[in-house]
């Protein structure tokens, strides 16, 4: 049983002779959810600090791209903008009188529809042949694989894509290249690795000498990975461990990787609040130029628009995403920023660290270690 396994891993971790603090970063919103929901932070020894990193494609989606999607919806005649539900509420930096999110654009009369699958985008485009359907895609490798599948299977002429696809490993590489990385060991994302293969994370070990383990989403799998990186550090024997072997196979899903390669291309890309990370974006290949919304529509950028690309004023999401501060350290956390009226993207998305912490009942810095224990 998984829960007994979890308790055993916890006992093994507690028995480790840790003498100095270890900061372990996860880069997956799904991991952060499991950690918070199961109360792993309070169950683990104080010496272990679990840090949420750049784990959510919604949080890092460029503000300019969201603005562009809103403007397409509002200004392009006969357009329908479709996007994964989480994207609809993310605010852009415009005055409070202007349309600030796709949700508000919808209220203002634009045809904006939340979808749950790329197949739905195709279905909508087929059923509305007189309209131009723009699929606004924010997602990591796991989400880009189905989008690649959709493209390879063939899409209708009236379906365009506004691609904000991102690769996760270049963000981790950037954090590791900092003079003082904000963490000491990495829990690598399970579903990204399911698609791309464990090999994607080998550089953490080979180039940087950091312990790393791939984890699944159950508490026992996460605890196994935490135990692994701690042991690696204590023993001075660093390697890439795969604690999610049932699902993460060598080379991942080769078909999915082949489809990504044949439909998408890697580009330098901006991350909201962080800036451009080289070779971290997935954009449509040139053969799909006629489906590229970036090429079809003018760039909607008002010169007067202040803070384009930035996080909303006062919001500390950029440092949250980089693992420099915890959600509770943001001045707005729980004050003006809650899931009901989010200020920054990290409070909007189900995988945003602020949203996850708030939903798991963490209200103050001290409460971080007081959540319900892992039972």
């Amino acid at each position, binding site marked *: 049983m*998984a*829960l007994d396994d979890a308790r055993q891993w916890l006992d093994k971790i507690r028995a480790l002779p840790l003498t100095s603090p270890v900061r372990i970063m996860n880069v997956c*919103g*799904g991991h952060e*959810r*499991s950690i918070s*929901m*199961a109360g792993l932070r309070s169950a683990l020894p104080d010496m272990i600090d679990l840090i949420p990193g750049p784990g*959510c*494609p*919604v949080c890092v989606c460029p503000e300019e791209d969201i603005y562009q999607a809103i403007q397409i919806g509002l200004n392009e005649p006969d357009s329908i903008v479709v996007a*994964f*539900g*989480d994207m609809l509420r993310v605010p852009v930096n415009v005055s409070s009188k202007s349309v600030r999110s796709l949700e508000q654009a919808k209220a203002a009369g634009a045809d904006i529809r939340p979808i*749950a*699958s*790329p*197949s*739905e985008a195709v279905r909508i485009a087929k059923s509305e042949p007189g309209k131009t359907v723009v699929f606004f895609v924010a*997602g*990591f490798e*796991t*989400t880009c*694989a*189905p989008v690649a*599948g959709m493209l*390879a*299977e063939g899409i209708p002429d009236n379906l365009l894509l506004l691609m904000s696809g991102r690769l996760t490993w270049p963000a981790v590489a950037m954090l590791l290249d900092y003079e003082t990385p904000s963490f000491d060991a990495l829990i690598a994302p399970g*579903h990204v690795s*399911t*698609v791309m293969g464990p090999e994607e994370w080998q550089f953490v070990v080979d180039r940087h000498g950091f312990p790393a383990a791939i984890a*699944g*989403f*159950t*508490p*026992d799998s996460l605890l196994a990975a935490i135990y692994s990186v701690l042991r690696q550090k204590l023993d001075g024997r660093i390697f890439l461990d795969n604690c999610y072997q*049932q*699902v993460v*196979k060598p080379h991942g*899903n*080769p*078909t*999915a990787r082949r*489809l990504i390669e044949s439909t998408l291309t890697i580009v330098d890309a901006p991350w909201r609040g962080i800036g451009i990370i080289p070779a971290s974006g997935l954009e449509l290949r040139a053969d799909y130029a006629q489906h590229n919304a970036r090429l079809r529509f003018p760039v909607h950028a008002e010169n007067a628009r202040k803070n384009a690309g930035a996080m909303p004023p006062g919001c500390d999401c950029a440092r949250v995403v980089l693992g420099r501060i915890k959600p509770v350290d943001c001045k707005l956390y729980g004050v003006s920023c809650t899931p009901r009226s989010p200020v920054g993207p990290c409070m909007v*998305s*189900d*995988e945003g660290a602020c949203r996850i912490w708030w*939903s*798991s*009942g963490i209200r103050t810095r001290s409460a971080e270690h007081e959540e319900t224990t892992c039972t």
Partner: protein
Amino acid sequence: MCLAIPMQIASINGSRAVCSIKGIEREVSLFLLQDEPIGIGDYVLIHVGYAIQKISAEEARSTWELLDQMLTEDAQHA
């Protein structure tokens, strides 16, 4: 947004399949698993309507334990 969930294949029609779990049925694409032998009764991990990997019945079960727990917690904190 992007946690993949396990489901069991109930029927297959070309690259599309009907999958079910706990009485819920969904049409999903098997396109990303086109090079894998896959059949009715197999468990797959579904992300945004696409099966991204074949998994064992046991793995499917332990993931559902976790998801059930998350769903109840979400409801409590909503």
